[in-house]
């Protein structure tokens, strides 16, 4: 790619040449001293543009490109070729090859051995600049030169260079190309910690002469950025280039208000293609963006260039080989860490040398990105808006610090994460290309320059999960391709309506995205919508849902849902206090002695909820700063595939890594028993909540043993809270485990009816939907049987549903004026009947007529004989008796047998296999009372009652 780009760029500025009006307008502007062939405006623009994406490292080169006009003026002042464009251009021709030669010269040392090459280059170049300077001076004697201010001095020097080098500013193509080439070479950086930067060879003598070395990078930079901003406002010019690129992609621009999608766009000299990675400006007005990225300075002497630089693998800072103590002769093999980082690792406080007064350390784009002052994105699609602006859809990269888990020790310095977060970005905010590579490529990429990043995982911003790119890339690529195909084909046919709608929708969305292209906004406005083109995740919310005002009953129903988190937890104050003192006592002192608490109680008595509420309270205290931070790991034994997996879960919660349980066990042992730190600075106390502890009991109980053994170790700082239903779990375990479990127990007894009543009414606070007696009735009923709060809530909710249903029926059937919207005793009773009545009663109530008679006959037979068991033969006799005496037709033996078998399948009766026919033994599976209760009220067979 780097080899191709220059050529294309080479073409781009030429393009406007062909338009004559352009030229005219150019020539009419008073300030031009350029050849008429090269229209100034687009030219400068493009050059500036190209500068922006590709930070030039050599100062004067940057100058010569950014200030061509100034250069010319100076040249005029020199009087060598004042205003004579023709002459200049003629001069240019012979000189051009020389220029190229120079360029080649430069290349050689770069590619070759750096340490030596440097010297060679200096030799090759040194003659040029002094000569240039001298020639100027001798020719003119130039008073200007003497009085140059620091801002100007480099420019002057520049001009001289330019003049010398072939007066190429008649045509920007040349310098630009040269610059391009240089750029490509100069950005070369061997990743293996050797950064070779070819310093400004010519600069050295110049600096020596002018003596203003420290200041001169500043002024061109300011100038540069100003001009860039001006340039940005005019976007129209780029359109021409873009249309050209349109042809490349063989896409014809459609008339009308349509977006045009491109595969490749050449924008301000940079060529951007779908799939490329680019730096994106973070804010339009951010101060950090004003400084144009600079060639990296040495961290010691704060000068750019001057020989080979080496990169520290830890802080990524660059150092001159000479500036190091002791100085290095050549770049060492393998990792190299600078002295500052080494010292820091040893625990010393180190300060990097301060930059000289008045000079700010200029950060490179890479540094800015890693400090999250810039962003990187991957281009997913490119298009032109109707108004002619160019946009791209980017997929953000984020740095590890921006993920939920923060930077982990295993993250490399240059690691990025690809996200599933997309945003529409204007092309304007692109700075330049960067290279984000897979680990494989990254390992190979030795000399790709400074903008090389590694990306191995995709980060899900909603779920905070990581996925290895290698795993998802294959299918996703295919998917993308298909999506593109679809899009293209649908664009081909001119179905206007659909298209327009789409456009409008898109446009609206863009309007959203435009004001600020921040991650945040992008994440929110596009949640769940990928690629913008497909309409995924849109949901119609019908009007009646929105307008409907919730009735009291409906609110009651909602608040009684088990999933609703209550505002307060009544009736468990004592227990919660105990848990609070336990946890606080454990984590508050610096020692953090390990402890264990076992909480037991019947289901539905608020065990887990209380613990979680306590943890929330403590969390808020931590946030307030009154308690030291701790980490809280919650595990539910029921959710583990195997008890051993708990190690994996705990380890993952502590460090964010997922390893096999064996490995996790080993690592956790290291951490808790041996006191080794898994993560740096991770000596926070850890609270481990294990719900359904009894499910961790394996055959040899080693899992529980290990978990309960850790708190008894000196430096574990582990607090275990186990929750289970079984009261005597510790006693059931091996004695060695119960010995380690300690004596701290907490019992959650079943609620009594007052407590249940309080719980329900606290939930229903402010909602007047229940009669007081109804609540009491429900709670008494539940308290008598199980004391399970869940059940009480369910009954009340069900009662509310029944009441709601009844009310709506009343409204629809009779237009009665007074409709009660309160849950009464009757509703609660109905709900209780439903809840506590075993399902078999329902089945019996709803079974067929013959089955009912069959069951009645069974009961009748039972009453008659007093024997639980009967045979089919006897039953059939009874059955026929019942039928004949009540005017029913006897269905026949076969049918009867079939009915019996059906009931047997439902397990309402227990029966032998059906092939025994007459002698088949039958028995009711449920008490006869149940059958009687179920069948007494049956409407179609009222006569059954007298046999029951």
């Amino acid at each position, binding site marked *: 790619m780097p080899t191709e780009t220059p050529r294309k760029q080479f073409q781009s500025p030429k393009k406007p040449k062909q338009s004559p009006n352009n030229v005219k307008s150019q020539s009419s502007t008073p300030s031009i001293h350029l050849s008429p062939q090269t229209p100034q405006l687009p030219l400068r623009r493009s050059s500036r543009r190209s500068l922006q994406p590709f930070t030039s490292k050599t100062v004067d080169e940057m100058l010569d490109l950014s200030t061509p006009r100034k250069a010319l003026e100076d040249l005029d002042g020199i009087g060598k070729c004042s205003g004579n464009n023709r002459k200049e251009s003629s001069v240019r021709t012979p000189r051009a090859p020389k220029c190229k030669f120079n360029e080649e010269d430069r290349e050689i040392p770069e590619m070759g051995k750096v340490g030596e090459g440097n010297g060679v280059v200096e030799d090759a170049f040194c003659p040029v600049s002094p000569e240039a300077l001298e020639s100027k001076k001798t020719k003119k004697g130039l008073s200007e030169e003497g009085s140059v201010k620091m801002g100007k001095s480099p420019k002057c020097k520049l001009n001289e260079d330019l003049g010398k080098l072939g007066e190429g500013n008649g045509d920007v193509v040349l310098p630009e190309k040269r610059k391009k080439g240089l750029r490509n070479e100069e950005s070369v950086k061997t990743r293996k910690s050797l950064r070779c930067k070819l310093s400004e060879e010519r600069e050295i003598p110049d600096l020596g002469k002018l003596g203003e070395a420290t200041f001169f990078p500043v002024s061109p930079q300011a100038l540069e950025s100003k001009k860039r901003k001006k340039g940005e406002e005019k976007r129209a010019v780029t359109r021409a280039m873009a249309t050209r690129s349109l042809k490349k992609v063989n896409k014809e621009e459609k008339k009308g208000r349509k977006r045009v999608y491109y595969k490749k766009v050449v924008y301000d000299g940079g060529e951007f293609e779908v799939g490329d990675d680019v730096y994106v400006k973070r804010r339009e007005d951010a101060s950090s963006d004003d400084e144009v990225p600079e060639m990296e300075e040495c961290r010691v002497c704060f000068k750019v260039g001057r020989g080979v630089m080496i990169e520290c693998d830890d802080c990524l800072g660059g150092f001159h080989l000479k500036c190091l103590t002791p100085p290095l002769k050549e770049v060492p093999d393998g990792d190299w860490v600078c002295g500052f980082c080494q010292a820091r690792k040893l625990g010393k406080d180190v300060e990097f040398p301060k930059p000289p007064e008045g000079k700010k350390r200029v950060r490179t784009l890479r540094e800015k990105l890693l400090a999250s002052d810039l962003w990187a994105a991957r281009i997913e699609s490119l298009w032109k808006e109707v108004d002619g602006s160019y946009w791209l859809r980017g997929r953000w990269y984020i740095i590890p610090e921006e993920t939920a888990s923060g930077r982990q020790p295993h993250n490399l310095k240059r690691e990025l994460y690809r996200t599933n977060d997309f945003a529409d970005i204007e092309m304007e905010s692109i700075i330049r290309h960067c290279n984000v590579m897979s680990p494989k490529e990254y390992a190979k990429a030795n000399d790709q320059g400074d903008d090389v990043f590694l990306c191995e995982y995709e980060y899900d911003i909603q779920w905070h999960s990581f996925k290895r790119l290698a795993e998802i890339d294959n299918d996703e690529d295919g998917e993308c391709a298909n999506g593109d195909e679809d899009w293209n084909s649908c664009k081909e046919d001119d179905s206007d309506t659909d298209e327009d709608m789409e456009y409008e929708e898109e446009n609206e969305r863009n309007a959203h995205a435009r004001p600020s292209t921040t991650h945040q906004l992008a994440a929110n406005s596009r949640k769940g919508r990928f690629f913008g083109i497909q309409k995924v995740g849109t949901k119609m919310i019908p009007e009646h849902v929105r307008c409907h005002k919730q009735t009291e009953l409906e609110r009651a129903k909602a608040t009684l849902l088990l999933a609703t988190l209550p505002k307060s937890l009544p009736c468990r104050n004592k227990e919660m206090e105990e848990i609070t*003192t336990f946890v606080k*006592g454990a984590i508050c*002192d*610096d*020692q953090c*002695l*390990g402890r264990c608490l076992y909480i037991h109680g*019947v*289901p539905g008595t608020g065990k887990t909820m209380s613990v979680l509420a306590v943890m929330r309270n403590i969390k808020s205290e931590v946030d307030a700063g009154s308690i030291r931070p701790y980490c809280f790991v919650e595990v539910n034994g029921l959710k583990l595939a195997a008890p051993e997996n708990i190690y994996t879960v705990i380890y993952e919660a502590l460090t964010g890594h997922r390893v096999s*349980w*064996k490995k996790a*066990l*080993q690592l956790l*042992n290291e951490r808790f*028993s041996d006191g080794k730190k898994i993560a740096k600075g991770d000596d926070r106390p850890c609270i481990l909540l294990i719900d359904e502890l009894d499910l961790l009991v394996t055959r*040899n109980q*080693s899992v529980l*043993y*290990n978990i309960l*053994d850790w*708190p*008894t*170790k*000196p430096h*574990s700082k582990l607090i275990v809270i186990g929750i289970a*239903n*079984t*009261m*005597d779990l510790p*006693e059931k375990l*091996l*004695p*060695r485990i*119960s*010995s*380690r479990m*300690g*004596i*701290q127990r907490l*019992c959650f*007894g*079943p609620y*009594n009816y007052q407590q249940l009543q309080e719980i329900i009414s606290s939930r229903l606070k402010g909602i007047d939907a229940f009669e007081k007696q109804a609540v009491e009735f429900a709670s008494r009923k539940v*308290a*008598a*049987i*199980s*004391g399970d709060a869940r059940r009480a809530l369910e009954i009340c909710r069900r009662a509310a549903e029944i009441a709601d249903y009844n009310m709506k029926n009343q409204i629809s059937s009779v237009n009665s004026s007074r409709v009660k919207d309160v849950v009464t005793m009757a509703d609660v009773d109905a709900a209780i009947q439903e809840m*506590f*009545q*075993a*399902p*078999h*009663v329902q089945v019996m109530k709803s079974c067929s007529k013959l089955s009912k008679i069959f069951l009645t006959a069974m009961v009748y037979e039972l009453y008659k004989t007093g024997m639980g068991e009967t045979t089919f033969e006897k039953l059939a006799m009874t059955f026929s008796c019942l039928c004949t005496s009540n005017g029913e037709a006897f269905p026949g033996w076969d049918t009867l047998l079939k009915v019996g078998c059906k009931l047997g399948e439902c397990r309402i009766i227990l029966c032998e296999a059906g092939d025994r026919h007459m002698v088949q033994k039958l028995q009711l599976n*449920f*008490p006869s009372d*149940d059958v009687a209760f179920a069948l007494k009220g049956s409407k179609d067979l009222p006569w059954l009652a007298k046999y029951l």
Partner: protein
Amino acid sequence: MPAIADRSSSPFKAMLAAKSCELAGSGGCRPPQKRRLRSDTAAAAKESPVSTPMKLKSPRRRLDSSPSSPANRVKKDPSEKTLKKCWNPRDVEQIRAVKEAVHVSTAPSTVVCREDEQKRVLDFCKACVQQEKAGSLYVCGCPGTGKSLSMELVKQQVIDWAKMEGLQPPEVLAMNCTSLANTSVIFSKILGMHQPKKKSIGSASPLQHLQNLYSNKQAQSSSKMMLIIADELDYLITRDRAVLHDLFMLTTFPFSRCILIGIANSIDLADRFLPRLQSLNCKPMVVTFRAYSKDQILSILQERLLVLPYIVFHQQALELCARKVAAASGDMRKALSVCRSAVEILEAELRESASNTGLTSAEGDFVSPQTALAHEVFPSQENNTVRIDHMALALSKTFRSPIVDTIQSLPQHQQIILCSAVKYFRGGKKDTTVGELNKSYIDICKSALIPPVGILEFSSMCRVLNDQGLFKLGQSRDDKFKRVTLKVDEADISFALQGVRLFRNCLQ
């Protein structure tokens, strides 16, 4: 530690030395500390770690000199204690120090009351190292009797001793068998210790490697003895017992260099699982750690508390704790956690009283400052130690049987079930099925005019009772045919339920 070497050479001299040392310690070290204490308790608390070594040594020496006279010690202790000041439980630092002292994880530098066992193990190790022969030892004892702790110390002592004697100190591999992912990993660990550099080579398993290693004579240079301490040895018991067997067999090879110390709870593990070793006449020596007696627990607790420069526990409180725990299990961990919970009870009590006095002190201003001061000082002296009642409360929290409370707090229907079970088992039966019990339950319900719950509900209630430890449910696919046994005494149930007339009538 010259003292140890001395002792090993001649215990008598050591005794003398120890006594003189103690005298010197009490003469030289204590008085300044006392002074400091009086001046500033907080400072003393901070200082305490500094003074610990001196203090720790003295009691052990004393024990050495008179191991069989706990009564002596108990008598001696109060006299010593009078020198100490009462602690101030309101001081966070002190509370922390106390809690740390009685925490399980703070390993004391010496293990009191286990000298005999330690000595036996140490002698065994010494003999092995000296003669450069392999050997195996099995340490058993109830949980919380200081097995692992003693082994830790023995490990260190062996190394120290070997260095002292100029022998090559053995390499030590201490591991807990529960933390092995797979039982046979133990061999690769042992092999890894032998050949730290070499990676496992191909086909042969680590066990085979080890066997080869131990059956052939090797160069002297590489023949370091290896001390393997395997905690919770019974986790290595597999179905075919191969691992355990192989492990012990390693010590029988002619050129084996490993000293194996296995630790487990069961007393007869070696007999049960290693019959073949017996036939080879290399049965491991067995060292048994008995459960602590009350005197031992008391002395251990006191030794731990010696670290603190102030009195925390009343003598009687400690004794009560020791007696109770010794009677129940002799588990030191339990004793420590009882102590801790007693401290917490005191803490909570003080907090409560502080909030109360905060209210009352405002109105009690008219009391003259002097009397108020006296009033303040005297009870605080009394209040600030953990008294016998605190300890009793803590013990009852630990050892009480919560059955009566539990039964009384049960929902009504579950109580009826219990009642029906009692009634059912009156006839002398030992167990029944859920279905049968349901019938009995329904009878009672009917007699009391309470609508009974359905069978499904009934069986789920039985499960809850099972969870509460009142019932024992057998395994069965069908709910109805699960066997039910009552796990608590009938008398408990009738006692708990006697308050309700319904049940009184039922159980008459």
